[in-house]
């Protein structure tokens, strides 16, 4: 049987949180996408056990798109034969705008993007790929909370529209101790409510939130 490289990369990423590459293979056989989707859906079912409120349903297309982005971006970090102009073609934007279920589904793979960008920055700070990937993160910024995005410019309307997603977002802000996000007016009160009386114990550096 032919090796399923795309599936193996996604599995390694999800299970042991590492990227294993098998050479320069930008083409993805359509057969494999089915396997990847069912694997990701399985992962999603495991993950939603830990999600509060009513969990958004799994968005196949979005999850697959994110897996492809990670797969291709990882290869571009290592083997670069393409011109800067080709990057946008190789890493297309997602066809529709983010919704609660696509944000959570995309996050299955896209949550590893911040670390990849940091790796890329270590290799070459002026790589045009950084810009392309950062743009993706600022659209899907739930996956980019650990990354230093320009928080003033992001769109939070969808985040606030869904209780589950909002709580996940707040959890992640607290987990990564992203002060910039925590101090935004739309999150400030909610972070305060989350931490309650125990702000000092959970997040002692967060003095700005006193009032």
């Amino acid at each position, binding site marked *: 049987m032919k090796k399923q490289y795309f599936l193996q990369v996604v599995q390694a990423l999800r299970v042991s949180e590492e990227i294993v590459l098998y050479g320069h293979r930008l083409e993805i056989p359509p057969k494999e996408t089915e396997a990847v989707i069912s694997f990701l859906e399985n992962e999603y079912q495991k993950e939603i056990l830990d999600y509060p409120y009513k969990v958004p349903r799994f968005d196949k297309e979005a999850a697959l798109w994110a897996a492809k982005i990670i797969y291709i971006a990882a290869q571009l970090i290592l083997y670069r034969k393409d011109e800067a102009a080709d990057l946008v073609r190789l890493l297309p934007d997602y066809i529709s705008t983010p919704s609660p279920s696509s944000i959570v589904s995309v996050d299955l793979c896209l949550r590893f993007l911040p670390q990849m960008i940091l790796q890329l920055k270590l290799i070459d700070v002026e790589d045009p790929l950084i810009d392309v990937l950062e743009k993706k993160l600022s659209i899907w910024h739930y996956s980019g909370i650990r990354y230093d995005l320009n928080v003033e410019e992001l769109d939070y309307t969808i985040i606030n529209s869904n209780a589950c997603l909002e*709580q996940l977002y707040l*959890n992640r802000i607290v987990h990564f101790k992203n002060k910039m996000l925590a101090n935004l007016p739309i999150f400030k009160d909610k972070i305060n409510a*989350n931490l*309650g009386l*125990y702000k000092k114990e959970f997040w002692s550096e967060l003095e700005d939130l006193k009032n």
Partner: protein
Amino acid sequence: MAEDITNDLNYYLEIEESRRVDLGTIRAWQNLKVATAKGKLWLTGFDREQINAVEVKSIPYKTLYKVQKGKLYLLDSLLPDRNIPNLLWTPIERALPVELPSLNHNYFGVEEQMKMDIVPSENESEAIAMLTNIQSLKQYIKTAPKVRLNPLKWVVLNGEDILIVGKPILPIQGITYWRYNNFLLPTGFDFDLYSLKQNLEKRLNPNPTHWIIWNEDNNYFDIEKNKLKPLSLSSFRQTTEKIQ
């Protein structure tokens, strides 16, 4: 209104120093003061009731005086007997210290037992554990911020009750506990013989592998510490699914 002159009366008691043992009955009256002079013990500070009490009357070989116009009159006498002695007074508890009987080497009462009771206590201590039930936790955990769950560990006790250990405790209903070593005692309660806690713990839990959880009614149960698992929404959901 004229003052009751009896309130101002002062009384003195004089006794041979060798007979100090006889004063045992009145030693507990803390208003008394004692002084020694020339082989005699002087006591003063009695009030009218005390000087007429059985405890004083039963002291043999004593002399009682009352003070009038700076002179000492024998009680029931109309003639002054002597001047007020000029003495250095000390409180009776200090002047007549309690002595413990010497150790009895022939005493074999080692079978005696002591009962430890749990009683309300004034000492404030921080709650670090909570006994609640699945229903109460379910209400909260569905919408709980993860940061509140992270420091906690939990275990299901009998298919219904839940023990959560860790702080800060969750804002749900339940019985809270404070910690003494590996004891979890209900908040606001402590053992009446609290200094024996350590001995009791050594007896019950020589290797600290268990939590010992005390109820207000002096009963306890124990739970192995490594049975407690980190509390998370997924852990809760998977566990409750198995129970039902």
